[in-house]
C-alpha cells in the first residue's frame, strides 16, 4: 500500500484493526484519545467490539475478560491511566491471556501534563504491578515503526500468551508522518478460538482462567513456568537498531522519540567528523544487554539519552558492567530535547574520551 500521512494515534489503532483486533476497551486520555476515537468509528463499521469503559480499571478488566474468551483484544491509555491498570495487568500476567496495550506516555508524576515523556520506563519495563512478571515492551521511534510493532505485538502476545506493551510518547501519538499500513487480516471465527479459551465447555472439560494458586508450591511452579517463558522471550525477541556503530568511539543509547532525536544529533556529529554511533533498543523487555555489552568492548564511552530522569540507563549500566563510563542526559516533565541540544552533550562526552 502507498504511504499515507498518518497521525500516530490513528495509525496504531488502524494497524491493530488490520492485525485482526476484535475488541477494544479504553477510556479517553490525552495524548492518546484519538486512538479511542478512531476505534469508536471503525470497530462498529466492521462489526467488531468497541466500548468506552467507565475507567481504566474497568477497561483493563474488560480486556482481561475478552482475552479470556480467546479474541485479539487491546486497550490504550497514557501514564495516569496506565497506573490504574497495574492490578489488572498483574492478573492478566498471572493467568497467561494474550493482551496488547499501547501506552502513549505523558509528563508526570501525578497529573503532570500531557506533553511527550518517557517517564514510565521503569513502571512498564520492570513491571509496575505486583508479583514476578514482565510484559514484552516494544518502543517505536516513527509512525511506521508504531504501526509495525503494533501488528507484531498481537502476534507475540498470542505466541507467548503474554502482555505486550507498545511504549511510545505523546509526540508519536500526536504527530503525523508518512507511513504505510498493512493489509486487513480477517478476524478469527468463534470456532477458531484457542482451545484454552472460555467458549463454553461444549463437549469438553471446563476451561478455567485464573491467577490464583493458593498453595505456594503450586504458585512457585507457575512462577517458574513464567520464568521459563521469559528465558525463551529473552532468547528470541530482542530487537534493536544500530546506526554508524562500526568505528564509533562514543555510543549513544536512546529509545523511541529520544532515539529518533539522538539519530539526528549523531548524523550532525558525524558531519563534524566525530566517531559517534547510535544504539536504539526497540524491545525494552527483553532488553538487548548482550548487544550493548559487545559494543561496549569497542567504544570508549556510552551516553544514554532519555526523556526522563534516568531509567533505562540502569539497564545500560547492567549491560556495560563498568567496562566504560556511562553518561546520562535527560529532559523531564514533557520537555522534548532538541537535536542541537543532544549534539552538545555528544561533543562534551566526546571531549572526555581517553
Amino acid at each position, binding site marked *: 500500500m502507498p504511504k499515507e*500521512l498518518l497521525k500516530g494515534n490513528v495509525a496504531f489503532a488502524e494497524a491493530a484493526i488490520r492485525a485482526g483486533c476484535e475488541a477494544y476497551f479504553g477510556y479517553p486520555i490525552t495524548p492518546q484519545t484519538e486512538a479511542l476515537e478512531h476505534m469508536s468509528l471503525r470497530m462498529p463499521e466492521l462489526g467488531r467490539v468497541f466500548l468506552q469503559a467507565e475507567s481504566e480499571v474497568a477497561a483493563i478488566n474488560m480486556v482481561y475478560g475478552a482475552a479470556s474468551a480467546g479474541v485479539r483484544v487491546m486497550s490504550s491509555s497514557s501514564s495516569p491511566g496506565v497506573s490504574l491498570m497495574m492490578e489488572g495487568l498483574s492478573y492478566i500476567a498471572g493467568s497467561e491471556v494474550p493482551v496488547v496495550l499501547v501506552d502513549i506516555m505523558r509528563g508526570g508524576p501525578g497529573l503532570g501534563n*500531557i506533553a511527550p515523556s518517557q517517564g514510565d520506563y521503569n513502571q512498564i519495563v520492570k513491571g509496575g504491578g505486583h508479583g514476578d512478571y514482565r510484559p514484552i515492551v516494544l518502543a517505536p521511534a516513527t509512525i511506521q515503526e508504531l504501526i509495525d510493532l503494533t501488528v507484531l505485538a498481537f502476534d507475540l502476545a498470542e505466541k507467548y500468551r503474554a502482555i505486550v506493551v507498545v511504549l511510545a510518547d*505523546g*509526540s508519536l501519538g*500526536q504527530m*503525523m*508522518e508518512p507511513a504505510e499500513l498493512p493489509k486487513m487480516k480477517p478476524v478469527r471465527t468463534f470456532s477458531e478460538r484457542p482451545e484454552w479459551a472460555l467458549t463454553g465447555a461444549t463437549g469438553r472439560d471446563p476451561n478455567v482462567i485464573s491467577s490464583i494458586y493458593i498453595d505456594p508450591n503450586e504458585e512457585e511452579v507457575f512462577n517458574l513456568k513464567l520464568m521459563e517463558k521469559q528465558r525463551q522471550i529473552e532468547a528470541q525477541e530482542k530487537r534493536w537498531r544500530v546506526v554508524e556503530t562500526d568505528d564509533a568511539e562514543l555510543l549513544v543509547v536512546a529509545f523511541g522519540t529520544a532515539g529518533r*532525536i539522538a539519530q*539526528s544529533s549523531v548524523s550532525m556529529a558525524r558531519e563534524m567528523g566525530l566517531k559517534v554511533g547510535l544504539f536504539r533498543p526497540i524491545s525494552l523487555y527483553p532488553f538487548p544487554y548482550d548487544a550493548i555489552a559487545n559494543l561496549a568492548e569497542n567504544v570508549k564511552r556510552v551516553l544514554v539519552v532519555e526523556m526522563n530522569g534516568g531509567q533505562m540507563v540502569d539497564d545500560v549500566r547492567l549491560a556495560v558492567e563498568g567496562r566504560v563510563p556511562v553518561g546520562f542526559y535527560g529532559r523531564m516533565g514533557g520537555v522534548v530535547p532538541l537535536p542541537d541540544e543532544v549534539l552538545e552533550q555528544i561533543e562534551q562526552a566526546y571531549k572526555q574520551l581517553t
Partner: protein
Amino acid sequence: MKTEIIISGFGGQGALFAGQLLAYAALENGLEVTWFPSYGPEMRGGTAHCTVILSDQEIGSPVVKNPSAVIVMNIPSLEKYEPLVKKDGILVVNTSLVDRNPGRKDIQVILVPANEIAEELGEKRLANLVLLGALMERLGTLSLEQIGAALKLHIPEHRRNLLEANLKAMARGAKLAHADPASA
C-alpha cells in the same frame, strides 16, 4: 534543506488544516515531513497551532523552539511566536485580526489582511489559505502548484465546490509576499 513552520490561530480558523495541506504537498513531492499539533487543554482558551517540518532527510524532533517561519492568525499567537522566529525568518501576520505591528526588525514580516481578502473572494473561511499562499511564495520550498495539487486531493468533500476559490485565495496571498515588508 530543513524548514520549520508554525501556523497558529483560534480554533476554527483552519490553522491545523493549512498545516496538513502543506504536509500532504510535501509527502506527494518526495520530501520528508512531520506535522505536530497543539493538543489538550491548550484548546481551551481557544487557540490551535501546528508545527510542520519539511526536510530532504529523516526528521528527528517533530517540534522546534525556533521556527524558520510562522503564520499568526490572532493576537495571542503573535505574542507567543514573534519572539521565537529564527533571525531572518518569516512572520506572516493576519492584520484583519491583529491590530498591532510586530516589533522585531531582524525577521521578514509579511502583513496580510487575510479576512478582508477572503471576504472579497466571498468565503470568510479562506483566510488560512491566503496566509499560506503568502508564506509559501516567500519560502519557495513548495510551489503554489504543488500545494494546489495536494489541495485537489485532500479537500474535504463538502468543500469541493470551494476548490477554485481556495486556489485563488493562495494566489492572492502570494502576491502580497512580494510587497516590501517596510511598506506594509
